[in-house]
């Protein structure tokens, strides 16, 4: 068995340590300006990677993110694990019982908020394929489906905070919108898994087989699996050390689920996402346990993943103004129209509905994960990847000020309340 050489081990550990510290510093700096941590982490990667520091001082950049073959493979493994865990946590945020309790109104709201961006994105990509640059020309249908999906995704935490600022988080309408956003997430990731399944070149199964197994896996995990997990948690609570026991078992099952979905031909993230939903729905899961899992993943693995993006792609060389403007404009138009109409149908006033539109327009970390997976699957070019990342960052940044403007809120409601 080959193993890392002594200097490679040092290099790997050094990379991880520096990436974590730099990501935190940049993240906190950006948070001071009320921007998401993920933006700071991304910017850190871009500044220290081949786009800037690596261009002029490649040796220095190489210390932070080693490009040695063996170390690269090890880092690639770590970032793959990171993204699986990120999707597990995202799954834990999806509350199936909340979606059920809000009934058809939430589904209708979600449907409008999802179908309009998806349809517009799909239509535009299918008919104006060339405007998106030099992407995988083999299958325009799959590419268009991906663009449709990318337009539909939204960041659940941002919408939750929007509703909180509106003072309607706990109201029926607030819950309808939260449930709709959760449903959007669920459908969005299923859609994306199907898109990756349709590409199937990387694995050996046919699409129908993969699709059938995907549905079967999701159905079993969300019914029988969910019930078993719910019953197993109190037992584990009694017999294992807690919350360490929960961390091991939940993440262990997430990896098993991820391995299964990877095997059947869709991406590993889908398996982890579904296991996350099954765990998150348990009545025995306390806030403290949730928080521990969330903190563990979002503060250790998420930064590694997001910083590493900046090291993998040269954002300067691959920046294309036309493509970026197109993706940004299309994304904002699609989501504002779709989500605002959905919220309007859900019962909000026009300005509130528009605020929700801006809230749901924030794509956040999930869009970046989606784009990276598409890039790795060679479905999109690096230029389009850069455009999507910029779109995710810009839509996340603009959500706060747009809301403040629409709702005439002062910039920091909480800070003002503190005084």
């Amino acid at each position, binding site marked *: 068995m080959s193993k890392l050489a002594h200097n490679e081990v040092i290099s790997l550990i050094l990379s991880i340590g520096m990436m974590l510290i730099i990501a935190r510093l940049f993240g906190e700096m950006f*948070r001071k300006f009320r921007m*998401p*941590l993920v933006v700071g982490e991304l910017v850190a990667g871009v500044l220290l990677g081949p786009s800037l520091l690596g261009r002029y001082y490649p040796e220095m950049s190489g210390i932070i993110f080693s490009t040695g073959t063996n170390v690269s493979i090890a880092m690639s493994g770590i970032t793959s694990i990171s993204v699986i865990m990120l999707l597990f*946590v995202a799954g*834990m*945020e999806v*509350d*199936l*019982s*909340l*979606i*059920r*309790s809000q*009934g058809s109104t939430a589904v209708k709201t979600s449907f409008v908020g999802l179908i309009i961006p998806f349809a517009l994105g799909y239509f535009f990509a299918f008919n104006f394929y060339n405007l998106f640059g030099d992407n995988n020309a083999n299958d325009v249908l799959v590419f268009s489906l991906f663009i449709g999906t990318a337009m539909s995704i939204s960041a*659940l*935490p*941002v919408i*939750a*905070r929007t509703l*909180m600022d509106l003072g309607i*988080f*706990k109201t*029926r309408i607030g819950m309808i919108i*939260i449930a709709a956003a959760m449903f959007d997430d669920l459908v969005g990731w299923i859609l994306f898994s199907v898109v990756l399944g349709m590409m199937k070149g990387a694995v050996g199964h046919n699409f129908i087989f993969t699709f059938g197994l995907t549905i079967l896996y999701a159905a079993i995990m969300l*019914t029988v699996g969910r019930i078993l997990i719910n019953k197993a948690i109190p037992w584990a609570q009694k017999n294992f050390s807690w919350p360490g026991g929960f961390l091991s078992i939940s993440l262990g099952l997430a990896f098993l689920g991820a391995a299964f979905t990877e095997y059947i031909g869709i991406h590993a993230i889908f398996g982890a996402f579904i296991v996350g939903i099954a765990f*998150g*729905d348990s*009545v025995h*899961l*306390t*806030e403290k346990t*949730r*928080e521990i899992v*969330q903190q563990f993943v*979002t503060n250790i693995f998420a930064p590694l993943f997001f910083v590493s993006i900046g090291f993998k792609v040269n954002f300067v060389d691959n920046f294309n103004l036309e493509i970026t403007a197109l993706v940004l404009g299309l994304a904002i138009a699609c989501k504002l129209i779709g989500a605002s109409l959905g919220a309007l149908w859900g019962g909000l006033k026009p300005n509130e509905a528009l605020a929700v539109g801006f809230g749901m327009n924030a794509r956040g970390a999930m869009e970046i994960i989606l784009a990276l997976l598409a890039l790795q699957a060679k479905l999109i070019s690096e230029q389009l990847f850069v455009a999507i990342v910029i779109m995710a960052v810009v839509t996340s940044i603009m959500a706060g000020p747009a809301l403040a403007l629409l709702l005439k809120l002062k910039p920091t409601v*909480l800070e003002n*309340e*503190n005084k």
Partner: protein
Amino acid sequence: MENSKTEKQQLFEKIAVAVAFSPRIEAILAQAKELQKIFNSHLLFIHVGEHTLQQEQYLTHLIHRFGLDLPHNKIVWDSGEPVEAILAICQKEQVDLLVAGALEKESILKYVMGSVARKLSRRVKCSMLMLTEPSIKPNGFKNIVVVGTDHPKTENTISVAISLAKAYRAQEVSIIQESDPSKLAIIRSDELLEHEVEQHKDKIQKEEDEKIEEILRCSDCGELQIKLKRIEGKPGYVITQFARENAADLLVLNSPDRKMNILDRVFPHDIEHALADLPCNLLIVNPKKDEDDNVA
């Protein structure tokens, strides 16, 4: 039991009793007798399905034995599908409370498919009392657990529970506010600082506390000892667990907001957690028509 007649009449003027010729029929009638006595109600005994002359005579005999053969009480014999027939009769007769016996727990298959009592509880338009352990010598409800979760129906539900508790001279009334951790987790994942999350949480809880305090201020609680308690967990589940752990004899919950179906049992929420495994007798409070309009 010293309530004014007006209050008694306002609560449950007409009570329907779903009669099945099971071993618990006498206990159910005994409970009905107690309810009638307390609320001065008219009783309606409903039996749906084939019945024999012998059964008719038996029911008449029991009604006489319990002193329920009063002029304003009546028996309705009907045929057809029990749930649909009972719902139709309750609607037609403008029943305020439906009383039925229920098992604490049913087999998974029966629970998913739905028993008569549970199907009724999910669809009935009036309030419903599900008796898990009816007694031939009813002892009233002494330890009552009431939902205090922030919801438009909660005010009416607490008000009904307080009237009931006063009528039964309950020794303990606990109002349970449920905090759902999954909702807080979403806020937390928005990279807020710890104190910001706590502030959001405190703000939500303060608003909820103020609402409950306002409800209690407006209610005539008399000498009742009312405890307010906040528990973290899934709505419906934590209150059910609390009722079980505290050996409550009555759990009072809001009625479902919409018609529940099989998916609500597969992905349980709110009242479905209680129906899956009843911790004690369950009162589901459905606002009356005029109250319903206010709630909406």
